[in-house]
């Protein structure tokens, strides 16, 4: 029983991370009908930046780990990394997708695959082929315990929640209540009409990519700290989980991406714990295929498109 609760807690933490990345997929798909293959690799670069940043402050500047200074520096790093990844994401849109705005649908998808490989290769050359351990700046303290005495969750899980939940709330507020958020929703509904209504479509799309990239960067920081490592293949690994989450919740649907993230996170954790970690990808891929084949609009979505 305790095993179950512990797995679910880990699943919840992972789920929040996956949700953050999934929202990036869903925002871009909603506005461009493009599966941004490179999105998860931008997240991977976020983990890499975190690794380099922490190495710089701990090894370079000699800031002691598990200190208040370290904690504060993390919260300073967060916006910095988010700006980095946001810029990278928006630049990729500008260079590799915008010229294909009016091309047949598969063209930008292939371009996105190209960009994904570019970023992965970059990750490979700056990080090397194997996982790299991130400086453990957070104290590895457990905070809650089961009646039997085994640990339940600790500082790590609190950190995940502390970063992801505020970001999710801010995003929700932004897309729902601000003028730019409205512009994003309008452009996602009907690009041409939005343009005719005076919305600067290019700027709105760039903004979408900036936000998606920023969220990916934040997820990158969280993962680097939570998993304690960075790896050039993180993009592929988390990309699968997040994209499945986005599809599960109904691609284009923000709430769906969030809930989908939580569901996939928990399924992943349960699979790792009770099945075998080496089969988790197969499980998640199978879910992805089944959803796309039988309910492509997602579990949460109401409409099922009519096909003659």
């Amino acid at each position, binding site marked *: 029983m305790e095993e179950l609760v512990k797995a679910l807690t880990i699943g919840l933490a992972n789920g929040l991370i996956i949700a953050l990345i999934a929202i990036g997929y869903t925002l871009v798909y909603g506005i461009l009908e493009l*599966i941004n293959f490179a999105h998860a690799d931008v997240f991977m670069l976020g983990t890499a930046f975190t690794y380099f940043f922490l190495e710089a402050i701990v090894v370079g500047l000699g800031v002691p780990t598990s200190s208040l200074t370290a904690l504060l520096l993390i919260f300073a790093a967060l916006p910095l990394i988010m700006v980095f990844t946001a810029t990278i994401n928006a630049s990729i849109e500008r260079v590799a997708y915008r010229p294909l705005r009016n091309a047949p649908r*598969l063209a930008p998808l292939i371009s996105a695959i190209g960009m994904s*490989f*570019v970023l992965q290769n970059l990750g490979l050359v700056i990080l090397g082929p194997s996982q790299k351990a991130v400086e453990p700046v957070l104290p590895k303290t457990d905070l809650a315990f089961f009646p039997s005495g085994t640990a339940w969750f600790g500082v790590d899980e609190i950190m995940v929640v502390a970063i992801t939940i505020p970001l999710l709330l801010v995003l929700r507020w932004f897309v729902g209540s601000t003028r730019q958020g409205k512009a994003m929703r309008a452009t996602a509904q009907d690009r041409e009409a939005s343009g005719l209504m005076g919305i600067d479509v290019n700027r709105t799309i760039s903004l979408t990519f900036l936000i998606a990239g920023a969220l990916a960067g934040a997820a990158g920081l969280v993962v680097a700290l939570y998993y304690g490592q960075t790896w050039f293949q993180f993009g592929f690994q988390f990309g699968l989980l997040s994209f499945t989450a986005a599809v599960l919740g109904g691609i284009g649907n923000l709430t769906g991406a969030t809930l989908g993230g939580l569901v996939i996170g928990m399924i992943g954790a349960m699979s790792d714990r009770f099945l075998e970690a*080496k089969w988790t990808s197969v499980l998640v891929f199978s879910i*992805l295929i089944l959803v796309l084949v039988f309910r492509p609009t997602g579990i949460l979505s109401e409409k099922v498109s009519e096909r003659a």
Partner: protein
Amino acid sequence: MTAAAPTRRLALPDPFRSMDRKRREKVLLVGVLILAVVYPLVFRALESAFPFVPWPGTSVLIICATFAILALGLNIVMGFAGLLDLGYVAFYAIGAYATAFLASPHFGIHISWWIVVLIAVAAAAGAGILLGAPTLKLRGDYLAIVTLGFGEIVRIVFRNLGDFTLALPAFLGGAVLIGPHANLTGGNVGINPIDPPTIPIPGPWGNEIVFSNQNATASFYLVAVLLIITFFVCMRLRDSKLGRAWMAIREDETAAAAMGINTVTTKLLAFSLGASFSGFAGAFTGAYQTAIFAESFNFAVSILIVVIIILGGIGSLRGVVIGAFAVQYVNQTLLRFLGEKILNDPVNALGDATGIALLGDFNLVNYNYLIFGIVLAIMMIRRPEGLFPVETAKAELHGVGISSDSTAGTPDELAMAEEAAPEIPKDTR
């Protein structure tokens, strides 16, 4: 053939100007064949005579030819039928593993490769039907993701089945059905050795010709023959009723259905026939390498084949063959050559001087996928039809000026051709 407007010649450099199209193609073909036969025999001599030229080794050419077969197969799916398959490596793996299961000490089955290859092709074709049947109705980008998923599942399953236990869950008794620690596929280590194809003809090579990586020259000849067969079959398919149906579906699926084409079965045929070529290549690779392991059949391989097709010319048979040789030559030989002989040292020196590890450890070979990724993006933006597109071939073959297509000739050539042709009357009824 009905005599229409007189053939308009495109201005071309000598010495081909005097020959007509068909003869020129024949001459080129014979030239390539002679080169293919002679090169493996003289390669070593060339290498020692001209060491500063990046000659591709015979084993590299074998990889090139293998990927040409793969590219021709994927070309049926992507170029003819217009379906994006990102998991094409799965069928490659299935062909290779089928060969490994049926011609190696792994299960103790030793069927002759010449028969096993047919089984491998059938297995891949069957897998193509299994995958395609539920998924071909999906929209293009969704189909791409699903096929990617399938490719990954196949790889991971082949890897995991090297050490697995199939048991009932605890609440049903927990009885072990298969295992524990059953080994079906060799897992990470894979399966080796695998029996290579042999022909019992004695000679200076021994009692029989063995087509394995111990005898690269013979293996190259074998794969070249397999490539020729593949090319020939694809040509026949392209110029048939089925080929036209595929192109119609690619152009406009709704209109194709409105012309009586059963798009479901036609797409399934594309998928399945395309997959069978992948299995074909897999059967060769497994036996030639005499060893396979799951991790080598990964997503990057699928993408490499996509790069080949996009670069060479989607839908164009000789385009994708040229693309395969070019891309794998760059991947296997040229990058290493340029790195070792030209770029690596100065960049490393710069890195050591400035203390930047990225430069200090620079090796051009490690940047191959970065280059291919950029190539993909550039091709889609600037020249999506590829470097050797289908239309040029069409224009050349039929000699009729294509007014708006710049690949057919310069404006001057077209103007000259216009003048030469008789006036086509407006009203022909």
